């Protein structure tokens, strides 16, 4: 499988009046052709910042970035962090396309759908207006919009939310990119439409053999479509593994907490949701050690001191499933197995 995206030790920080916000702190991951890699985490965990970094979409001068992001582009690799504005622009939409969370606001309200799609093609193929328009109609048809030639002449407000997200996907496909970044593609949609969009994404992925980087906070979505999962907390990946590892054999207490907090259909009415106690830390003053330590109920299995002072490295019994946690492996397995019984 060809690697399409490799992020190594990415740090992204935003200087603010209150101090430096460390939004992403040492993230490494990779996406290959045909696979779906998910980044899951709560708001402010750094997942969207990571995805915007890949596209080089942070406001000029606002973000301090280090590490490397290399993208398969024009037969070679492009490092987004060191590349120039023009190189990044030629990559955007052509090698990597992106769809966003809120399809209601992601389309320009004043331009016709067809023109907005055509523009995506025209910026990379100047002058080929006819081709762009026929391709726009073709793509609208592909994402399941009926009478695409007619609808191409309509404006975004004439489309429903789900249809707009389909339009966004069609727009992303205009240049047949090898890779797609989907930033919370279903969050703003209702559940039935969510399922349709996910099915559509999966079928398009098969058809074009695309790599997908899926950003979401929805574990259900993760379980449904992704092969590899990165769980983020406070700007760091705290657990990385295959989808089965993440869901059936959690290694990090935060991941376990997430799984426990998912409401069960089998639960009796009186049972309360098991939320993780406490709040995520401020990204301006992150604790020196594990950022999750103050909320961790398994801290008793360590000497506690390490959690407070030392940032654990990503490690695990196998290279394909790792986590950042100081808990002793044997103690963890016993107690997590107990907890997972409740989850199932």
């Amino acid at each position, binding site marked *: 499988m060809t690697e399409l995206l490799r992020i190594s030790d990415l740090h992204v920080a935003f200087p603010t009046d209150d101090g430096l916000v460390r939004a992403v702190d040492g993230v490494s991951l990779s996406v290959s052709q045909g696979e779906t890699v998910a980044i899951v985490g709560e708001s402010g965990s750094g997942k969207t910042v990571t995805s915007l970094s890949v596209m080089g979409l942070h406001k000029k001068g606002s973000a301090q970035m280090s590490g490397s992001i290399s993208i398969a582009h024009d037969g070679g690799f492009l490092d987004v962090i060191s590349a120039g*504005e023009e190189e990044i*622009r030629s990559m955007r939409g052509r090698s990597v396309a992106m769809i966003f969370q809120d399809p209601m*606001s992601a389309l320009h*309200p004043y331009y016709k759908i067809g023109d907005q799609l055509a*523009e995506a093609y025209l910026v990379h193929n100047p002058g080929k207006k006819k081709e762009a328009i026929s391709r726009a109609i073709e793509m609208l048809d592909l994402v399941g919009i009926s009478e695409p030639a007619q609808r191409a002449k309509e404006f975004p407000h004439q489309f429903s939310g789900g249809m707009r997200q389909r339009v966004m996907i069609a727009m992303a496909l205009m240049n047949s990119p090898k890779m797609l970044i989907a930033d919370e593609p279903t969050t703003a949609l209702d559940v039935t439409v969510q399922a349709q969009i996910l099915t559509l994404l999966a079928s398009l992925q098969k058809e074009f053999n695309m790599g997908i980087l899926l950003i979401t906070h929805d574990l259900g979505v993760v379980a449904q479509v992704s092969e590899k999962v990165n769980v983020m907390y406070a700007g760091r990946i705290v657990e990385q593994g295959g989808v089965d590892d993440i869901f059936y054999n959690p290694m990090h207490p935060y991941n376990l907490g997430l799984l426990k907090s998912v409401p069960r259909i089998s639960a009796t009415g009186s049972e309360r949701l098991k939320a993780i106690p406490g709040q995520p830390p401020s990204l301006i003053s992150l604790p020196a050690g594990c950022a999750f330590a103050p909320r961790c109920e398994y801290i008793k299995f360590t000497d506690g001191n390490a959690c407070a002072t030392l940032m654990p490295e990503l490690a695990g019994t196998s290279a394909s499933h790792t986590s950042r946690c100081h808990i002793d492996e044997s103690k963890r397995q016993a107690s997590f197995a107990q907890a997972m019984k409740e989850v199932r």
Partner: protein
Amino acid sequence: MYRFIGRRFFFAVLTILAVSAVVFAIFSVLPFDPAALTCGQRCTPQIIEGNRIKLGFDKPIYEQYWLFLSGIFVGRTYGSGQAAFSCPAPAFGYSFNENACVTEMIKESLPVTLNLAIGALVLWLFIGISLGVLAAKFKNRWPDTTGSVFVLLGTSLPTFVTGLALLIWISIKWKIVPMSLDGYVSVLDSPGRWFMYFILPWITLAIAYAALYTRFTRAAVLDTLGEDYIRTARAKGVKERTVLFKHTLRAVLAPIITLAGLDFAGLIGGAIITETIFNLPGLARLTLRSVYEFDLPVVLATTILAAVVVIVMNLIVDMLYAVLDPRVRM
């Protein structure tokens, strides 16, 4: 679309009717005797009563209003027999002070005001939008800070200061633009003189408005640059210049045009200071003079005209908005 325009047009006509009725009613309850005001120094009750009948002030108020309205469409004849005189349609009344039909007086002053307002509008839109876009593009850098100095000066300096300063330095001291003593010339007759005649008043008005528009455009552009659809455009690989001048400016244009239409309407009959400083015989000057002289028919007509311009501009702006913003179209 046509239904939308038709409906708006219908309501515009209704509003104009209502406005004219209200203005007419206000003028009829003023504690002046309009007939007495038509009379000069050597006044006798006979002359007053004669004028009262001649001008129709003896009739009940609703009949006067009807005569006023119908005069607009069919013209109006005052008095009867040998002494009768008439104003052709559209007649807005007769000014005894000037011995002229009000329509004639408006016909003379309206072109001056229109030239003033349109020129100023073009100038301030150009300056305001350019500076606003520049300031937004280079936020917190020197074009922005320079722009904000201009905004501060433009908004805080009243037109009688900028106007007089321009007049004193440009016209009198440096003699770059000659003082126009021989009156208004049409652009068709002599473009050069027309330009010289209007350039300083244009600049005076434009400075004040351009400052507001710079601030407005800057804020609107910055707002729009933060929109999701701008991020989408960038993610497509659209050039930054296109993002700014196509995607962003397109979204900013609709509210600017709304604002411009209404500000323009305000200038018709509202540029009193500028018209006075530069001695422009425009509508505002006409109104001002009529107020001083209690020339009520003229005040009535210009007041209604100003209201009509505001209503018509509103209509035009609404229609333009429908063209610019697809979400408004029905």
